[in-house]
């Protein structure tokens, strides 16, 4: 909101420099964002909060300044001498919809001479960024910026039968507004009409058909009141943001309707040489009595910690326009105040307290730390969540945050987390007003966002990407047909890793940059379970829609599926144009965080050395490591303390349907040092069993 320094000083006598005005207004709640010098004037850009539409005017801001300066507000003098005739003889006004238009006042100014505005008026409007049109239009604009109440001037000769009818638009009605645009109206919009046609969209903009022109002789000044919501909706629907609509949609003083007409006709008589009618037509069927609010003096200190004496709080309220009820004397601890008609934001005692506090000054409020009455606590799983993040950082994964939206065209690309239904689209949450195409769903999986992130990086030439994200995913709950039933929000953990193919024979500095594979990402997951000390995840091969067959697994925790891991499917990789191997995983984080902790119990250290034997076994590819390990453990073989995985080899020298597994066997006696021969005997027994049961060939 642009406010002119010189204009302000017409209403408040002040010697304060513009920079001081800036500081003082800011500290009472009218933040001045900038000050610009224009000629001999300064223009403030004032940020007016939505509860203070009364300050969308020079008088409104001047009133605050007058309270700050403890001086009087001087309202413009209205000269009513040049009045003749009677408007009520000439025009009639009918309001058909009092909800949308609670008041309509009108007055006629006769025999004006439409022409350019005087220099001072042009300059004043220009200082606040307003273009001069003609003297009549400029006066309406000037008065609006002065008082804050929009008014409109019609060419009376264009109002058929001099009859004003305030009604809802008809569904097939359209008019051309002053900006030359054809506006299609509907039943929700209010028009000002004559007996034939609409001549304005009420409170938003006038129509060309009744515009002031050089031929205009008699002017009908409209000063009406419109319902805020209606103006706001109409302006929004038409995409027509006018200065009038801006003010009406925030609220204008209902009691200023006639005063502002007086101010306008006075200026029109003076500048455009007209004569005004003696009376105004004023249709105002339901005048509201002013609101009344009580103030207990002690509440000021209780709420703000400011000690304010009664004379000072009374002065502030009076100067702001509040009137004490006659029956509440100043020495009483409770006073009732009538709220001024331009203040729509004052309903309760606290509102009065704020008025007093902001004019005493927030800077005078002490600073104090409240006494401790509570115990601080993180969210239940914050410790685990931090450990998981740290563990993933350690595995080389950086944290991503994606927007929580996804693209409905990705609906069927992914298998969702276990437990989330996957039949049809009805389970997805759809936004009715997405910000852009491709953001029309609340994401049911973190994977689409992570894939987009990888694509972004590849586009920027970054080909080594490891990301994880922790965030919520959304699906409708079982009773999704019920209105207002909150959807399921699950905390999910997603991982993605990709790296270029490694050319044979190439090496790199840090030495850990081999071909990325399934086990790299699996290792990152295993580390999580270890970091928060829960049962290790188990992995079983499975077919997953978004993963490549033969390189995909379901992840289980304590026997329960919690997600999947694997290499991105050919289809999705092609769709995203990924040429390098990409591995993705998504796990239900809530289940991980809620899993029970494995108790840590100290195990006595082995007192005698062990004997180690490695064995490489050529076995069928169908046989899984876990099968072999489980089998060995069930043997209860002599002295066998531990069997562990060393490595796997597949490739030249090994048939396609085979792979070579290398295992390490550790033999130990609890009460003496084991002899090599004893270990060898035990080992060869196990080897025989493996040969018999799996057809394993020792290499």
């Amino acid at each position, binding site marked *: 909101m642009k406010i002119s320094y010189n204009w302000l000083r017409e209403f408040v006598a002040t010697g304060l420099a513009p920079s001081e005005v800036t500081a003082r207004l800011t500290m009472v709640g009218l933040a001045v964002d900038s000050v610009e010098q224009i000629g001999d004037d300064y223009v403030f850009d004032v940020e007016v909060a939505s509860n203070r539409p009364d300050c969308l005017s020079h008088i409104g801001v001047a009133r605050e300044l007058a309270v700050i300066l403890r001086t009087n507000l001087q309202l413009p003098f209205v000269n009513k001498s040049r009045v003749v005739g009677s408007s009520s003889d000439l025009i009639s006004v009918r309001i058909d919809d009092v909800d949308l238009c609670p008041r309509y006042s009108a007055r006629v100014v006769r025999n004006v001479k439409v022409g350019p505005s005087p220099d001072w008026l042009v300059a004043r409007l220009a200082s606040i960024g307003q273009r001069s049109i003609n003297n009549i239009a400029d006066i309406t604009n000037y008065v609006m910026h002065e008082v804050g109440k929009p008014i409109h001037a019609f060419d009376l000769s264009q109002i058929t039968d001099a009859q004003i009818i305030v009604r809802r638009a008809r569904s097939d009605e359209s008019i051309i507004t002053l900006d030359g645009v054809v506006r299609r109206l509907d039943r929700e919009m209010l028009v000002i009409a004559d007996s034939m046609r609409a001549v304005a969209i009420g409170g938003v903009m006038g129509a060309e058909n009744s515009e002031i022109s050089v031929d205009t002789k008699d002017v009908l000044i409209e000063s009406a009141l419109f319902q805020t919501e209606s103006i706001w909706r109409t302006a929004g629907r038409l995409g027509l943001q006018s200065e009038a609509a801006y003010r009406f949609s925030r609220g204008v003083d209902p009691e200023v309707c006639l005063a502002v007409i007086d101010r306008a006709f006075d200026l029109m008589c003076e500048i455009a040489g007209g004569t005004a009618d003696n009376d105004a037509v004023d249709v105002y069927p339901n005048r509201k009595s002013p609101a009344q609010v009580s103030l207990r003096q002690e509440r000021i200190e209780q709420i703000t910690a400011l000690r304010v004496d009664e004379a000072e709080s009374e002065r502030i309220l009076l100067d702001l326009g509040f009137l004490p009820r006659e029956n509440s004397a100043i020495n009483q601890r409770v006073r009732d105040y009538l709220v001024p008609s331009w203040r729509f934001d004052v309903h309760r005692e606290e509102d009065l307290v704020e008025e007093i506090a902001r004019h005493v000054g927030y800077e005078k409020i002490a600073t104090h730390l409240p006494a401790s009455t509570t115990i601080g606590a993180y969210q239940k799983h914050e410790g685990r969540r931090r450990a998981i993040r740290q563990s993933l950082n350690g595995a080389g994964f950086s944290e991503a945050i994606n927007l929580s939206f996804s693209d409905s065209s990705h609906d069927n690309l992914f298998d969702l987390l276990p437990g989330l239904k996957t039949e049809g689209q009805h389970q997805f949450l759809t936004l009715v007003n997405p910000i852009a195409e491709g953001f029309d769903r609340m994401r049911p999986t973190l994977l689409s966002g992570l894939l987009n992130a990888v694509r972004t990086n590849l586009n920027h030439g970054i080909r080594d990407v490891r990301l994880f994200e922790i965030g919520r995913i959304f699906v409708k709950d079982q009773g999704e047909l019920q209105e207002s039933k909150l*959807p399921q929000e699950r905390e999910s953990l997603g991982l993605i890793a990709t790296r270029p193919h490694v050319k044979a024979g190439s090496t790199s500095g840090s030495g850990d940059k081999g071909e990325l594979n399934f086990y790299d990402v699996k290792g990152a997951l295993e580390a999580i379970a270890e970091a928060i000390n829960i049962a290790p995840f188990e992995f079983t091969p499975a077919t997953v829609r978004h993963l490549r067959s033969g390189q995909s697994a379901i992840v289980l925790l304590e026997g329960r599926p919690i997600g999947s891991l694997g290499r991105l499917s050919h289809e999705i990789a092609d769709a995203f144009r990924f040429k390098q191997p990409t591995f993705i995983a998504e796990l239900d984080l809530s289940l991980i965080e809620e899993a029970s902790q494995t108790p840590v119990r100290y195990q006595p250290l082995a007192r005698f050395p062990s004997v180690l034997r490695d064995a490489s076994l050529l076995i069928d590819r169908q046989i899984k490591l876990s099968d072999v390990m489980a089998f060995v453990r069930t043997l209860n073989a002599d002295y066998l303390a531990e069997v562990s995985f060393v490595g796997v080899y597949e490739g030249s020298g090994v048939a396609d349907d085979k792979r070579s597994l290398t295992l390490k066997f550790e033999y130990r006696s609890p009460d003496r040092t084991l002899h090599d021969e004893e270990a060898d005997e035990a080992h060869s027994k196990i080897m025989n069993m493996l040969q018999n049961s799996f057809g394993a060939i020792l290499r």
Partner: protein
Amino acid sequence: MSSGPEALPHHQQAQETLEVFRREFERFERFNDDSMIERLALSDAREVVRDLEAVKIKYTGRKSSLSKLKKMIGDIATEHRRDFNQLLRRIEEEITTSIERIETALTEHVRLRGAQRDALDVTIPGHRLESGRLHPITLLRQRIEDIFVAMGYQIEDGPEVETNFYNFTALNIPESHPARSPLDTFYLDNGLALRPQTSTVQIRTMKRSRPPLRIIAPGRCFRRDTPDATHNPMFFQVEGLLVDRHISMADLKGTLREFVRRLFGAQTVTRFRPSFFPFTEPSAEVDYSCFKCNGKGCSICKGTGWIELGGSGMVHPNVLEAVDIDPEEWRGFAFGLGIDRMCALMYGLNDIRLLYENDMRFLRQFKS
């Protein structure tokens, strides 16, 4: 026999040993001059050290003649033993001193030269696994949580998809308020909406638990802002709420002042100025002195010296009444701070869209 002990054969033998040593050691004498050692190359110096070591063993080792002489002590008449021992000690001392003096200097020289030859380039990077980084929003959020937990607050969260009651009605936002419009708030096809602020959590907490209460609720919020350098349709906010008896705006000022001092440093100054929010009354905008220029005015604070921290105020009595808390008995304050904005200012981001693009070049810049 009147001759002294010097004439005894053992004594003579010992004297001869010394003479032999002296003659042999002559070739090392030049190394008593440090400059001779300085001139030796590393390999030559090592050669000399080995040579010297051999000489040392030859004359003082277990099989040396000196060693043999020591064993002959029993053959010597008692009255001469003391003299003989003294003689042997003198001889041994001369041998070892001669050798060690040069040996020490040579060894020092070898170590020095060796160290020079093997000197590392300590500026070559150390070996380690390249670790990942936390998102800057997480880093800041964790710091904020740590500060408030230390001040007795509980961290809370609630649904991101909410009903109009929690999003607006209970927060004293009137039916006609523009914030409710589909221009500003995301709506779902079933009438629910994405929370435009985490103040929703205030309401859920107050419905669930009775005062005294201290909570903060950090989390994702959504508003229909078209992405540009300072807007995203999703952002992170931290909402704070304290409800207790005898709470005033002084407590609000004290709390937020303490918070910014812990986050940005003890020199940070706060400023409260009147503002408007439907769910607080009185309301205050909180500014803090720019951490970059300390209030002098710079590009970060757009020359004002102040940076907007967020909105705050005393909880509106209508809000307390909506959750059945008696505003005559309890009072509270609330505040809402934008984490994204703080993050942008703290790290000097000029375009906050970067926060959610997940470019590795961006993410890798942040450390706790």
